[in-house]
């Protein structure tokens, strides 16, 4: 009862739970729950043989949060910043701390610029992007796209129509802008030729 001191009764008794659920209560005593001093496989040896680790060589100016005193001794080198997106990223890291929304909004903007840049770059490479197959859309037909959704009361079905718009809209927009630019350019040239005559 909520309005009296007692807690509402459980649907199954503790004895019943202990009898039916494998391992029930094995970690009931907090001393069995992983924490200090159970934090290591071997409490005497974390494996580390340093107090401060040797430093990884910095092969290019590695961006870092200005909340750090210095570049951490180890870091990833997966995708160094490049192009316009790289400039935005470097600015976001150099100027704003993690506490500033500008830091994160700039990084999100850089992500979108990176997508466009990389896609355009791929078109002049041996392996151009395929915006369709890279979405794995084929599985809509082979793995029950319709049957996985219809009649299942899924909450996410409401927003699923938005997904293709979000994926396709930048492409459609990009194609429209390119078409308009080419058209303007060719019209301008035709205009020049007409004037020459």
């Amino acid at each position, binding site marked *: 009862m909520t309005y009296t001191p007692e807690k509402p009764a459980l649907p199954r008794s503790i004895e019943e739970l202990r009898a039916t659920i494998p391992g029930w209560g094995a970690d009931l005593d907090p001393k069995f729950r992983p924490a200090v001093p159970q934090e290591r496989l071997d409490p005497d040896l974390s*494996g580390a*043989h340093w107090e401060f680790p040797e430093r990884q060589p910095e092969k290019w100016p590695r961006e870092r949060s200005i909340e750090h005193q210095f570049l951490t001794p180890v870091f990833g080198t997966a995708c160094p910043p490049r192009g316009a997106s790289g400039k935005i990223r470097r600015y976001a890291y150099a100027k704003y701390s993690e506490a500033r929304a500008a830091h994160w909004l700039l990084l999100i903007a850089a992500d979108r610029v990176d997508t466009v840049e990389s896609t355009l770059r791929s078109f002049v490479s041996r392996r151009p992007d395929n915006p369709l197959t890279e979405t794995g859309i084929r599985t809509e037909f082979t793995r029950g796209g319709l049957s996985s959704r219809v009649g299942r009361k899924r909450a996410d079905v409401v927003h699923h129509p938005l997904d293709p718009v979000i994926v396709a809209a930048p492409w459609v927009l990009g194609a429209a802008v390119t078409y308009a630019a080419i058209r303007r350019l060719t019209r301008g040239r035709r205009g020049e030729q007409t004037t020459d005559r």
Partner: protein
Amino acid sequence: MVYRGPYRVRVEEKDRPSIEHPNDAIVRVTRAAICGSDLHLYHGMMPDTRVGMTFGHEFVGVVDEVGPSVEHLRPGDRVMVPFNIFCGTCFYCARGMYANCHNVNPNATAVGGIYGYSHTTGGYDGAQAEYVRVPFADVGPSLLPDWMDEDDAVLLTDAVATGYFGAQLGDITEGDVVVVFGAGPVGLYAAKSAWLMGAGRVIVIDHLDYRLAKAAEFAHAETCNFTEYDDIVVHLKKITGYLGADVAIDAVGAEADGNLLQHVTAAKLKRQGGSPVALNWAIDSVRKGATISVMGAYGPIFSAIKFGDAMNKGLTLRMNQCPVKRQWPRLFEHVKAGYLKPSEIITHRIPLEHIAEGYHIFSAKLDDCIKPIIVPNAA
């Protein structure tokens, strides 16, 4: 695999990773998994997710090469690698907070290093690949026990440990009513772990019936499909004698459905660090003085969370990335005792060359997918 932009990934030849620090190892991946939090990257939600990045932070493999200062691993060793990258000796590691290591992530101070995540976690390539660079090889990886199956081991590198950690942060005491939001892999393991800690009742909330069926069968939980109720909070109050749960575990995170406005502003327009629908339901549905454990991954930007209610109800909010290696000794005992069988939730095995399809199946929840495992070509 490489990320090509929101909702797009493909297989690409990349240079084999190399030793960049004396304590690095190169591991040949034999099993990797796609995690729910990989979907946040895949959907373009996490800031500084760069095109060309390889995802994947749940993996096991075979040591292929070690750096000059590696003392505890040799080529040929079978290892399981926690998703956290950590040094073992900084202020945080010294206190067992391996997920918060301060020596591995120059890009941010709020989070430690994670394989194959956005650059806000250090810019390390991930393991949905044939080979992966493993920093601090003397500290992070553990030898795969002979008796442990690789499929069980790969899930222990994140999902199982995180689910268990979620229940642990709930500070469950005997007979507690525990409500778990989300019946994905972490939610399922959190529900299962709640029993180990003596829960009296475990209720799992989701909108996918097939996942709820798994929660009932695998985790012995009561289940609620929130789409069947006008107001899931009122329903939870009703079935708990109008008191509310003692503990709530948010195993959903940034892409919670159930509120279109929140979903659009957060997941689509990226103007929040994640859609806080599940977290707000957790705040509303627990009793006063309850504990909320947050295991769902959220982005760094603020989210519209009902903090006033949390304050007025006297709630304890606990959260962190899981310090995986700290959890292993006890989890190994539970797997050995048969209390946990991690691989029971694997539904799909996907060759690396079909990674785009694997992501779409998991993201769109096609084919009753719960947990897909990636089998690299070299495995």
